[in-house]
């Protein structure tokens, strides 16, 4: 039972991914296939983001109240950068402050970071694919895959 409670999010994401994947491999129409790719990829983003979540966490944006402390740290670092050997000490100094800062539970920022990149990759792929569709439409006058194959067979 705990399994279901703990994992159902993943299962829904898997269902979404597989729906997208199905649209891709069902191969009805070129644009439909691209839409499928899009849904497939978007669902993968969801998979990653789901991983990063921590119960009762908040977005990894440090609260303004810590701004002052962070500011102090900043000085420490700059100071450390000027005198390399002091860097370590400065970092340690920060950890003390950091404990203060992470009293707040943050969700993991890394999946977000990765997915920002992945979203860009996704849109790039989509744009390229759509450009190809436009080209194919110019050449064949249709975007139905079986019609195109038919035309190629006859040519």
């Amino acid at each position, binding site marked *: 039972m705990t399994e279901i*409670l*703990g*994992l159902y999010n993943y*299962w*829904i994401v*898997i269902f979404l991914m*597989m*729906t997208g994947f199905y649209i891709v*491999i*069902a191969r009805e129409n070129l*644009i439909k296939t691209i*839409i*499928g790719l*899009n*849904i497939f990829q*978007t*669902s993968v983003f*969801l998979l990653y*983001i789901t991983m990063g979540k*921590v*119960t009762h*966490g*908040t977005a*990894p*944006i440090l*609260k303004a109240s*810590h*701004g002052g402390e*962070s500011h102090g740290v*900043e000085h*420490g*670092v*700059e100071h450390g950068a000027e005198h390399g050997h002091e860097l370590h000490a400065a*970092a340690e100094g*920060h*950890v003390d402050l950091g404990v203060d*800062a992470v009293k707040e539970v943050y969700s*993991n*920022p*890394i*999946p*977000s*970071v990765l*997915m*920002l990149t992945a*979203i*860009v*990759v*996704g*849109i*790039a792929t*989509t*744009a*390229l694919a*759509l450009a*190809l569709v436009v*080209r194919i*439409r110019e050449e064949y006058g249709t*975007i139905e895959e*079986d019609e195109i194959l038919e035309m190629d067979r006859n040519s």
Partner: protein
Amino acid sequence: MMDFIVIPILALLAATAVTVARIRNLWAAVMFTGIYSFLSASWMLILDAPDVAFTEAAVGAGITTILMLATLSLTPRRQRKSGRLSSEDFEERPSKSPLLPLLIVTITGCALVYGTFDMPHFGDPNAPIQVYPNPSFVEKSQPDMHGLPNVVTAVLASYRGYDTLGETAVIFTAGIAVLLILRKNTDDQSSSESQSVTGENA
């Protein structure tokens, strides 16, 4: 409490995805894709990933939809027959059997579900991803990035800066690629071009 929002969103997501899979009208499919992206973005927001959520809303629901609509306006709007959205739009195509893709998808899906059984549970604060590396990115980024409050931005610009560079390269590549694909051959080349049928294969 949150579940009251989450569960409807998830249900809607699933419903939208299935609709896209079944619908035959391409305009409608594109619109539903936009909705799907938007719903995803909402869920991402709930999952504490506002940066991704905003990007997904802008890129996925916005730009992608626009691009697709633009493409559609250049290409036939219906997958096959014309007309308004109707029951006909959900017909199965007789020519292709959906069984094989369905089988593949089921197997892949089952494999993934099988894989989830050993995964840390949703939201588990003790998952490897949350406890490693130590100090965490949130903690480490503070001194390293001069206290930039948004850790995601900080990490993007620092530790994973080369991913960001790669991301830029991807966009650039796609830009060049689209230009290459869509640019018309402005002036006709010498006649040698017309007699060449390099790749032709009867």
